[in-house]
Structures are given as C-alpha cells and as structure tokens.
C-alpha cells in the first residue's frame, strides 16, 4: 500500500512538473505579453524602453530559462503578483477557492444523497417504468450543454418566477448568510442536476452487477427481505466502485464548475481561471490552472486509495 502510494505520488509529481512547463509555455503563447500591455497603457514608451523592460523582467530569455526562474521562485513560495487584482496570487486565490469549495461541496453532498437512492431504486426493478424514466433522465443530463441548463434555470427561476437572483455572490451592501444562500440556489441546482445524472447511471450499473452475484441468491434463499438484500448486501458491495467514481468525479467537477460559475457570475476558482486567461493575467492563470490539475490528480489518487481501503480483497501493489 505505501509502496503503491509513493509510486503514484512520484508519477503525479512528474505529471505536475510536465504540466507546469506546458502550461507555462502555453501562457507565453497567449496574445500580448506584460510589456505589450505596458506599452498599450503608456504611449510614451519607446521600443528601446520596451526592450530594456523585457530584459529587466527576464522576458527575453529562452523559454527553458524563464521557466526555471519561475519554478525556483514558485517553490520558494513566490507565486507572483496578479495584474488585474493588484495583489499576490495566493491572496487572490484563497477566497475564490473557498467559494468554489462551498458551491461544489453542497452540490456534491446533494448529488450523492439523491443519486444513490435513485440508482438503487432503478436497479431494484430493472426495465420497469421508473427504471426507464431514471435512465432517460440520466441520458438527458449527460447530453445537456451545462451552460444551457444554467440559462434555462436563470430564465425560469430568476426572470420568469423571480424567486432567486440570476447571478452574483450577494446583494451589494446586504450580504449575510440568508442573502448568500439565495445566490447559491441556482448554481447549486445546476451543478447538482448534472451530477445526479452522471452518478445515478453508475449507482444503477454497479448495483445491478452485484445483484447478479451468487451471494445475493444465497441471501434471498436465507429469507432476507428484498429491502434487506438491496441495502444490506447489494448496495454495501456496490458502494466500493461508487465511492471510487464519485471521488474521481470531484476532479472533473472542478472543471465543470468553471461553466456554472461563469454563467452565474459566481466568483469562484473556475471563473477566476477563465477571467484571468481572458485578461492576460498570466501569473494568476498559471497558478489557477496548475491548481486545477493538482486537484484532479489528487482525486485520482484518492479514488485508488478509497478503493483499497473499502475493499479488503484489493491489495495495491
């Protein structure tokens, strides 16, 4: 187990290292560099000044050397300064991360709480009417464009019914728990609908796979009630792959939150990454992207570990 973990950690570190270079190089290929932006904001700069500034900031160095300078500074805790927020990157990221975790956390718990009973219910009576309906819903949820779903929710609940605000974090000058909760309802609903669609399919498939096994027949023969078979035997065993997949999804959710946050103008990590890319805020974009990669990889390792911890038959080597 520990040998496995160490190897996975080394692999993931390698992926992070490669990714950090790739993303660094890609960000360098974005339109405009910091000096272009300075030139645009100060017409008195001559080409000579621009060249001197480039040398001063080390922007004329080859990409490998520039990356190395960035990396050593980053490992020393200096992740740079955000151009658009005029604050150190980490200070900008902190509150955004908190808001995303709040949004994702709520929708994650809700999704699991809805999807697990729904999936088990569908698996209990495969090919029945409700199984068919649940299947259709899950297919639809996986095929709906996430931003369209968000727009529909805004139209129905904000424009038409006027129950909830269309987007943002809180009412300006008001704030407080209840106020912020109202702003969270639609983004959470939008993320949850999509997650439930994805999770339900896995819960149903895994529960059905367990239901085909011999020990289920034994349990029924012993006289265990159908409900007992379903929850005590089938679900308990199906939980292993289910937890794994849900853990894996936590990483993808992080990307998915980008769309939801952007449409609802919710200032979380996803919107921060998107805005920083569009605004040429290179330092912030770089750190945000690397953090997203890190979360995805961590979720992967977490899924493997969860698998081993939950299923004593599996030894990670």
């Amino acid at each position, binding site marked *: 187990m520990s040998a496995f973990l160490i190897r996975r950690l080394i*692999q993931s570190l390698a*992926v992070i290292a*490669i*990714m950090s270079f790739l*993303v660094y190089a*890609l*960000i*360098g*290929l*974005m*339109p*405009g560099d910091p000096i272009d932006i300075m030139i645009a904001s100060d017409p008195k700069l001559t080409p000579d000044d621009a060249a001197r500034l480039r040398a001063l900031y080390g922007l004329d160095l080859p990409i490998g050397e520039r990356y190395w300078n960035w990396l050593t500074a980053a490992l020393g805790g200096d992740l740079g300064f955000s151009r658009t927020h005029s604050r150190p990157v980490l200070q900008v990221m902190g509150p955004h991360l908190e808001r995303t975790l709040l949004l994702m956390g709520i929708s994650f718990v809700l999704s699991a709480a809805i999807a697990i009973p729904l999936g088990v219910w569908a698996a209990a009576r*495969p090919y029945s009417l409700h199984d068919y309906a649940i299947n259709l819903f899950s*297919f*639809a949820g*996986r*095929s*709906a*464009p*996430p*931003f*369209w779903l968000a*727009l*529909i929710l*805004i*139209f129905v609940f904000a*424009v038409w019914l006027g129950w909830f605000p*269309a987007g943002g974090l809180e009412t300006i000058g008001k704030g407080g728990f209840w106020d912020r909760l109202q702003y969270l309802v639609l983004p959470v609903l939008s993320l949850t609908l999509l997650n439930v669609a994805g999770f339900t399919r896995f819960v*149903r*498939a895994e529960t*059905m*796979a367990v239901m085909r096994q011999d020990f289920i027949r034994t349990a029924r023969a012993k006289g265990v009630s159908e409900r007992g078979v379903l929850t005590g035997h089938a679900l308990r065993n199906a939980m292993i792959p289910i937890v794994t997949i849900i853990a894996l999804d936590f*990483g*993808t959710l*992080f*990307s*998915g939150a*980008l*769309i939801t946050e*952007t*449409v609802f103008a919710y200032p979380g990590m*996803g919107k921060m*990454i*998107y805005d920083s*890319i*569009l605004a040429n805020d290179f330092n912030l*974009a770089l750190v*945000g*992207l690397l953090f*997203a*990669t890190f*979360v*995805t*990889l961590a979720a*992967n390792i977490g899924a493997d570990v969860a698998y081993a911890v939950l299923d004593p038959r599996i030894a990670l080597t």
Partner: protein
Amino acid sequence: MSAAAISVTGRHELRLRVLRRFLRHRLAVASAVILAVLILASVFAPAVERLLGADIRDVDLSAILQGPSPAHPLGTDELGRDLLVRLLYGGRISLLVGLVAAVFSAIIGAAIGIVAGYFGGRLDDLLMRFTDGVIALPILPLLIVLAAVDLTKLGLPASVANSSDISLYRIIVITALFGWTGVARLVRGATLSLKEREFVRAAIAMGASPWRVMRIHILPNAISPIVVATTLSVGGIILFESVLSFLGLGIQPPIPSWGNMLTGAQEQLSSAPQLMIWPGLMIFVTVIAFNFLGDGLQDALDPRALSD
C-alpha cells in the same frame, strides 16, 4: 469456390443480424433518423435561405428580436437576422466539428492503442501512462488556454492565423487532442486479445511484418469498438465546441455556431428567451441522439458486452 460462397453468405447473415439487433433498439433508430434529418437540413441550409429570402448576413436593425412570422419561422435575433437560417448554418459548423474531430481522435486513438497492444512491454507501459496522464488533465481549462493561444507566436503567418476559418480548424484540432483516450484504451484491449488468435499468430509465423499484421489482421477486426467509441465521442466533442464558442473562444462570429448563438442570448434572456431555447435545444438533441446511437451500435455490434 464453395468456401468463398460460404464466407460470403456468412458475412451477409452477420450483417443482417447486426442490423436486426440495431433496429430493436428503438431509441437508437429514432436517433439515427433525427441525425439524418439534422445533417440534411444543415447541408441544404443555403436552399432554405433562398426559399425564405433571408440572407444569413442580412443585418436588419428595423426587425430585431421579432417573434415567429411567415418570413421568419422562428423569429429574428438581436441584429435582425433570421434565427432558423442561422440555426441551420450553425448546425453545419457544430456537426462538422463533432464528426471531423471524432474521426481525427479515433485515428490517433486507434494508432496509439494498436501499437501499445501489439508491441507490449515498455512501449505499452509508456503509452498507457501517457494516456492515463491525459485523462487526468482538467480538460476544459486547458481547452480554454489552447483556444486563446496566439497562433502567430507559433510561427503561423498572420494571414493564416487571422483568417476567419482558423477558429474552425483550431477547435477541431484541440478537441481531437484530448478526445482519443477512450478509443486508445478500447483498441489496445482488442489488440491484446486478437494478438493471441490463431489467424494472427499464423500471419506472424509466415513472416508478415508487424505493420502488415496490424493493418490487415488486427485493425479490421477491432473496427466495432472503434465505431462505437467514435460515435459516443461525437456528442462530447459537440458539447466542448459549444462551451468554447459560448465562452467566446471557439467559433468566432459572424460565423454562427450553436454555442456562440447562445452567448448573445444570455443578455436577451428576459426580452427574447427563444434565442436561448432553440440553439441549446439543437445541441441537446444532437448530443443525446449521438449518445443513443452509440448505445444502439454497441448493442448491435458487440452483444457480449451487456450494457446495463
């Protein structure tokens, strides 16, 4: 002679059986019909345009955000352009991107999967670790970066990098870059089992080169999983295209795509919700149809893999 006849009838019967199994999957058949209609409608978009007398570039500020009328069956958008014609032209783009990128990613995936499975060992290890690495990436943020990269800095001449079609090619390339992993894994699995089959071993024993064995003996027999995975990937690619275009990083206006038609719709949500409904509905129907079609093909081509 007789052997050839047997093999021909055998193949014919096999095809019939596949067709029968596919026809039993009613949702998949319905999806195939819907997709055929959508493809035909977007192919004949110019004809519809002429029929309605509504040029797609026709900005008419005296007729913005109109409701349905005989001249504009679905109404007009915020610049007075006909919504139906724009939807059909948008369909051309979205379907083209989805299909072409899916084929590209299938080619990349099949090549990587077959090489990994056939040669095995270190190469297999390396390629599969690489595949795992790509799967573990946060795809959407990366696609956004790739869509924003300045192509002149990559050495492309400015005339090419700034032409209006470049956003189309760029989106096909970048979605294909991430879409191949599923096909690669499936083809690797199929190659591993095919490699042990007698006809492949016989071909190797007779001195066929690895390239020949992979091309003539393995690839044609691995075609079913490739077709299924490719069909299933079209929907995902169309979703990515629409998201990027919606965010303003994909297909650039005035070329319509279902995704970028929704960008303007958000501002008009209270005055003209139909601008939001139609393009989204087209994406939704197309993606779900490709998913059902892939499901149906899987049942028909590979009945052993019980799909739950």
